């Protein structure tokens, strides 16, 4: 057995079923093993950026670890954006990159790049394989690190001579151990007791749920706790779907593009229980004025997130599921007297409901050009028809913001968006990965004309493997979100935001053999999306939308949550 085969055997043992990638000179030995001798299915993409984002979408939608592969130098460098994105959003991805032979490393060989150096700050950990006998433990370690604790991307840089070298006495390791890596999963009981007590005594409590709740599959526990204590839940962008957003206690998203009532609730709350969130600036606005009246409870699996952006009163380190289970247990034992305080909170609930009515938005769905909110409404009907099996991916820009704001996601892992890094072009490949992980699901990518053009070449990948992702393009022939900022904050000086010479997306789809339709009338939107889904093919629904529609309400950058810009 050689190094390359040891890698593939190790991956099989780890349960890897799919690899997204593109081969090249320095990774050929691994692909040679895949050629005739593996249970793993490899999907060739048209760009490495797509391979890594597909692996990320695969992981986000399924909870399994996504795997991608690339050759040395340019191949590996093309993974950088996706790895950074996965690192920011805590997505378990393992990337394997070819590398020039160890004897050539450091000599600026053809297609050589210091991939371990380049990816050090954007991976949870990375390896340079220097001895063939290290391959089995490295594979084991990579999957272990990627998937445990706070998940994240791990990269294995694999020199060609190590791929080719034979391994004597190959054995798959049963366990792997890192002296410096012991994630704390079980929360401290004292902190749990303090947290439950604070929530029970609160008059205006609120839960802020982040992506961590979805990662640890803690949706049921979160909802049970919220229902038991009668507390409303708002979420971050990555937290969408942690609880059904049409639940009476669900408020929708918070932050820069959140709901007004969510933001007001944060600013008025006396106890804020945040779980699985890192208090990004898109959530807090100016952190100095974030939740000014609240005692803050912060639970996270990563101790370094606690106290990083926001000062915390009750810190809890632990896995979200275990934290919530422990809190539930304590809360269930509460005396009648303690539970009776719940009644005092009816006033708070009424206030929130009043905000919800007051700030409900009135949208002219019949307007021409089409209001983007109409597209969201039509896609919502698709979700509501089969919420469990409908996955929504988004690109980055206004397309994403409208979906974040208006869309009700009802199940965890059915909402895929580049939250931390905000990567345009991420949605389509994430949708591809999600469809591969969950073939039974319907996958829709909510795109802009700008972002879709960043990775659209992988329509070819969809055709090759029969991946019927439906791309819905909010087409405003511009980099719309930045254009909107120019309108709001740069005196309408539209520098370089108009996208002239966009392609005819119907013809583009036709060239690949995909399905497409251009829509310009409001009445045709729903029908076109249905047809696209029915086609069973990769599809584009290209919808001309109102370029000048502003994503209101919105907290200006660095602003305070309850002071939102509006019409």
């Amino acid at each position, binding site marked *: 057995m050689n190094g390359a085969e040891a890698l593939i055997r190790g991956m099989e043992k780890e349960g890897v079923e799919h690899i997204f990638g593109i081969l090249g000179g320095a990774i050929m030995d691994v692909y040679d093993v895949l050629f005739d001798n593996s249970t793993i299915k490899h999907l060739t993409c048209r760009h490495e950026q797509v391979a890594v984002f597909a692996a990320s979408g695969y992981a986000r939608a399924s909870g399994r670890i996504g795997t991608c592969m690339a050759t040395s130098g340019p191949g590996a460098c093309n993974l950088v954006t996706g790895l950074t994105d996965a690192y920011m959003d805590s997505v378990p991805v393992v990337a394997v990159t070819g590398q020039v032979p160890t004897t050539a490393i450091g000599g600026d060989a053809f297609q050589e790049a210091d991939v*371990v*150096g380049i990816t*050090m*700050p954007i991976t*949870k*950990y990375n390896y*340079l394989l220097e001895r063939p006998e290290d391959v089995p433990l490295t594979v084991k370690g990579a999957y272990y*690190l990627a998937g445990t604790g706070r998940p994240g991307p791990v990269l294995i840089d694999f020199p060609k001579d190590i791929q080719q070298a034979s391994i004597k006495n190959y054995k798959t390791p049963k366990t792997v151990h*890192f*002296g*410096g*890596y*012991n994630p704390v999963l079980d929360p401290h009981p004292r902190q749990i007791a303090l947290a439950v007590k604070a929530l029970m005594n609160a008059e205006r409590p609120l839960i802020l749920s982040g992506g961590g709740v979805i990662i640890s599959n803690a949706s049921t526990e979160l909802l049970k706790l919220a229902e038991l204590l009668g507390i409303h839940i708002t979420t971050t962008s990555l937290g969408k779907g942690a609880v059904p957003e049409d639940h009476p206690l669900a408020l929708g998203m918070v932050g820069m593009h959140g709901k007004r009532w969510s933001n007001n609730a944060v600013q008025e709350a006396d106890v804020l229980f945040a779980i699985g969130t890192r208090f990004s600036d898109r959530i807090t606005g100016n952190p100095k004025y974030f939740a000014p009246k609240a005692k803050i409870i912060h639970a996270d699996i*990563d*101790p*370094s997130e606690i*106290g*990083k952006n926001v000062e915390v009163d009750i810190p809890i380190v632990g896995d979200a599921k275990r934290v919530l289970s422990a809190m539930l247990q304590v809360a269930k034992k509460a005396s009648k007297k303690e539970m009776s305080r719940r009644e005092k909170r009816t006033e708070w609930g009424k206030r929130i409901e009043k905000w919800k009515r007051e700030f409900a938005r009135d949208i002219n769905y019949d307007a021409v050009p089409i209001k983007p909110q109409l597209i969201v409404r039509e896609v919502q009907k698709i979700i509501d028809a089969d919420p469990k099996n409908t996955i929504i991916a988004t690109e980055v820009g206004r397309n994403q913001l409208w979906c974040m704001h208006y869309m009700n996601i009802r199940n965890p892992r059915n909402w895929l968006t580049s939250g931390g890094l905000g990567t345009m072009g991420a949605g389509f490949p994430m949708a591809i990965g999600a469809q591969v992980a969950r073939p039974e699901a319907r996958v829709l990518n909510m795109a802009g004309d700008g972002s879709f053009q960043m990775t659209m070449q992988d329509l070819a990948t969809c055709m090759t493997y029969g991946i019927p992702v439906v791309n819905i393009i909010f087409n405003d022939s511009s980099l719309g979100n930045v254009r909107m900022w120019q309108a709001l904050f740069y005196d309408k000086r539209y520098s370089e935001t108009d996208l002239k010479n966009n392609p005819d997306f119907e013809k583009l789809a036709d060239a690949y053999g995909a399905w497409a339709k251009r829509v310009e009338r409001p009445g045709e939107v729903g029908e076109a999306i249905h047809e696209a889904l029915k086609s069973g093919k990769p599809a584009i629904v290209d919808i001309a939308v109102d370029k000048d529609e502003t994503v209101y309400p919105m907290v200006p950058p660095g602003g305070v949550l309850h002071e939102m810009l509006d019409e």
Partner: protein
Amino acid sequence: MGEKIHILVALVENKPGVMQRISGMFSRRGFNIDSLSVGTTEDPHHSRMTITVRGDNRVLEQVVKQMNKLIPVIKVRDLSEKTSVSRELCLIKVSTSKQDSRAEIAQYVDIFRGNIIDVSLDSMIVEITGDTDKINAFIKLMQPYGIKEVSRTGITAMHRGHKSVKDQKK
């Protein structure tokens, strides 16, 4: 919330790239390192780093947490001045071309319990060990003679008494 210099001791895996991981993390998160020294330990699998870092308590807490988050970092301890000892080694090449300077410098070296480790016709190299203040004081004394070169190792530090870094929880 005053800014202070803290001495951190870290036990890390003795592997290539660990220094890069740590120094990279410091620079990208905007933490200021005053000095950093690394060396082997009694266990060949581990290296020991002593890092002096400037910041208030909140910064220090983040530094410690971010270091702990790095996979090859096994343990990190903040050594306070009261319960630890710290030393730095410094080599100073000083000019002796002025009259009588050689004898005067030799006296200072005696007082500071340093060593003269090299002598040439118009210069000598002095070795001084001590805490940062002592070394700063000695360098100041040498300035009038003309310092040609200074090389400092950065601080290395240890708990007083029986306690060791290894005993502490990560």
